[in-house]
Structure formats: C-alpha cells, structure tokens
C-alpha cells in the first residue's frame, strides 16, 4: 500500500506525520522523502545512508557536422531549450525537460541525449525501516525527475541498481553490501513525504498512491490551503483523509469543511509544547513521548484496514 502525506500549506507537519507513522508501524515500512528541495525526514530518523546515485535528465547534444540547420528541433521544443535560427541550434540545457522530442524529429540523427545531473538520490535504513530521499541541486528548477527517481527506487537497496540501464541514474557510489540482507518480506506500506503546495512536484509525489493523508492546522490559513490540496487529490481521483496537527488552536473551520465535504478526520495531534520541543531537538514524537505511539499506530492500522476493504471491494467488482 502506498500512502502519500501532503498538505497545501507548508509547515503543517507532513514530515512529523510520515516519520512517526513509519516508526509506529508494527512491521517493515518504506519511507520516501520526496520533498527534494529540502528533505529533512532523515534528521528525525537517524538513518544510515548506504548508497547514493546522481539523478540526471537527458538533454540534447548536437553533432554539428550532421546538422543541416533545418530547425525541426527548435519547432518541437515547448520549453525554448533548443533554438534553431538559420544557424546551428543553440542549447539551453537548464530549460530542458528531457522529453527527447528534438532527438526524435531530427532528420539527420544529429542529436543524441546526454545526462545532465540535477540532483541525487540517497538511500539507507534504520532497522527494518527502508529509507530514501532525493536532493535537488541548488539552482535547479525541476524537482519532478528527482522525485520520480526516489519513487522508482522503492525497492530494497540490494536490488536498487537492477534497473539502472533503463533509468536516468548515474551511479557514483554502489550500494553497500554485506551488512545484512534486505528484509525477506517486502514492506507492507510505502509512505511518501510530499513537498508542500499543489504544483507539479506535489502531483509527481502523490501520483499512484492508494491514499493521501492531508495534514493541516485548524486555522484559516490551514483551511485555505487544505481546500486547494483537496481539489488536487480529487482531480487525481485519489481517496483522502485529514490529519489535524496542533489540534486545539485556531477555530473549527477545518472541521466544518471536512464535515460538509465528507472527508474523514483520521487523527488529531494536540497542540502540545513537548511535541514542539522534541521537534526542535530532531526527535521523533513516538520516541520522545511514547504515550503518542498508540495514536500513530492506530492511524497505521486504519490505513491498512481501508486498504483491505478497498481491495476486497475491487475484487468483488
């Protein structure tokens, strides 16, 4: 089961929920931190990084001897990454989305694709918890290819390199070997810590999930951005539920909204100063304050239960 944790608003507690849900799970889970512009889940987990790969996107390279300056490449490019004047094409690799269109339309085969690194993928584990995150290089604008790489990793480290031929990864450091086999059973749940907002990186992160948890705070700001997030998941036709963080502050706007929209409120994390303290020290709530473990475990169980029902209903159809 794949569960994405998203929110419209930033700073509502996505990483807090993802980390604590992962630590409260009864069995092995996989946590993918897809907030590649500022990944931080590892800080709360103390994960040992075991491997690293560069993530690149394919960008065109022009063989000027073969180029006839026909201009077809510049016409198909929607991003102005390749511009054909009457001369040979001019390239702007920073603008390239890696679609490969220019290579396809080139009648003389003058264009080949080379990988331009834009970020990296790191993976590791902590006990049974399998972990990976992406890191977009500073100054790069396109997070989705790095997010895709993190989601594609979605396998135990031992087999992470298996798909290399087909993927735009550049491996710079092979996975560590010989320090224990990956868990025999595959993780029962993959948790995706999504970036904030409602733009392309969020869509890339939540896409393909079985359920989306939307974290919000019960304030007018929280509600405003929750509405946007709900619109997004509905557009993607994904089921969702709300987790209210810092419950007790603000007003009842979020509750009224969820009631009216028939969105279940699945968990309430109280506005507890000790939670903020633990956060500031880089500690998971369930470890600093064990009395919270039960509510995260209950959410995990509820998600598994939902999945079982959804699966049964689907099979019956």
């Amino acid at each position, binding site marked *: 089961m794949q569960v994405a944790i998203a929110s419209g608003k930033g700073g509502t507690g996505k990483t807090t929920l993802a980390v604590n849900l992962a630590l409260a799970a009864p069995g092995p889970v996989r946590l993918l931190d897809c907030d590649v512009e500022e990944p931080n889940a590892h800080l709360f987990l103390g994960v040992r990084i075991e491997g690293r790969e560069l993530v690149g996107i394919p960008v065109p390279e022009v063989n000027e001897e073969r180029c006839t300056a026909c201009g077809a490449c510049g016409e198909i490019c929607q991003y*102005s990454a390749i*511009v054909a004047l*009457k001369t040979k094409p001019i390239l702007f690799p920073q*603008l390239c989305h890696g679609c490969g269109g220019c290579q396809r339309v080139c009648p003389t085969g003058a264009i080949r694709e080379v990988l331009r690194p834009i970020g990296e993928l790191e993976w590791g584990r902590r006990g049974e918890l399998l972990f990976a995150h992406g890191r977009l290089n500073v100054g790069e604008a396109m997070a989705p290819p790095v997010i895709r790489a993190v989601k594609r990793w979605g396998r135990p480290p031992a087999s992470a390199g298996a798909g290399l031929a087909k993927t735009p990864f550049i491996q710079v450091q092979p996975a560590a070997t010989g320090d224990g086999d990956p868990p025999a059973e595959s993780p029962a749940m993959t948790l995706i810590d999504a970036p904030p907002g409602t733009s392309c990186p969020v869509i890339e992160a939540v896409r393909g999930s079985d359920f989306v948890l939307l974290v919000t705070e019960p304030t007018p700001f929280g509600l405003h951005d929750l509405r946007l997030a709900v619109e997004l998941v509905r557009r993607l036709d994904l089921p969702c539920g709300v987790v209210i963080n810092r419950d007790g502050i603000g007003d009842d706007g979020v509750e009224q909204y969820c009631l009216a929209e028939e969105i279940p409120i699945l968990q309430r994390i109280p506005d507890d100063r000790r939670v903020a303290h633990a956060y500031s020290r880089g500690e998971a709530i369930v470890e600093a304050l064990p009395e919270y473990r039960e509510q995260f475990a209950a959410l995990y169980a509820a998600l598994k239960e939902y999945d079982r029902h959804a699966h049964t209903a689907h099979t019956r159809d």
Partner: protein
Amino acid sequence: MKVAVTTAGNDANADVDPRFGRVKNLLIFDTETGEHEILDNSANLGATQGAGIQTAKRVAESGAEALITGHCGPNAFRTLEAAGIQVITGVEGRISDALTRFQEGSLKPANGADVQGHW
C-alpha cells in the same frame, strides 16, 4: 537595415519598453524606407519559461539587424548574439527619438546581458 524596438505601444510616438522577453509588441523600423510594422508579441507574455529566447527568435525572424530595448537577460542575449543582432540596452523615452539617435550612431551596442534572467 531593419531595427527592432520593444514597446507597449503601436507607433513610433510610443515609449521604448524596458522589458524585452515579455514585451507586448515589437516595432520593426526600416531605416531605408522610414516605414515600420508592429509585431504582436503577446504570445510570449505568459510563457512559463524561455520568453526572452522566443522573443529573440522573433526579432531574428523579422530580419532586424539591431535591437533597441531597456534591458536584456543572458539567454535572450545569447540568442540575439547567435543571430548576429546588435543589442542596444539602457534606452528610454520615445521610440522616434531613440531611432534618431540610432541613425546618428550615438547608441552603442552592449557587450553582454545587462540584467540577470527573470529580472
């Protein structure tokens, strides 16, 4: 020769617009005939990226050999340079005055972009 000028207006009485990539119109002036035409550039106004590059391409396609504008970023400059177009930045005021100064030879081409991208 043809000279391109960025403007939000429709004739030589309008002002030079400081923007290049996302400028509304391009006025293409022919120094031999004294005539001009207006190229609508509004398609590039809302471009998500590469507005400067696309506008530079339009200037090149218009046959202009020089460009008079306020500011020009690095990607646009590179494209204009590749097309062999003289880029004159830092120009303000009425287009007709700017064209007069250009024809007198008192406007000097820039050596590079005068602003960062997404300025």
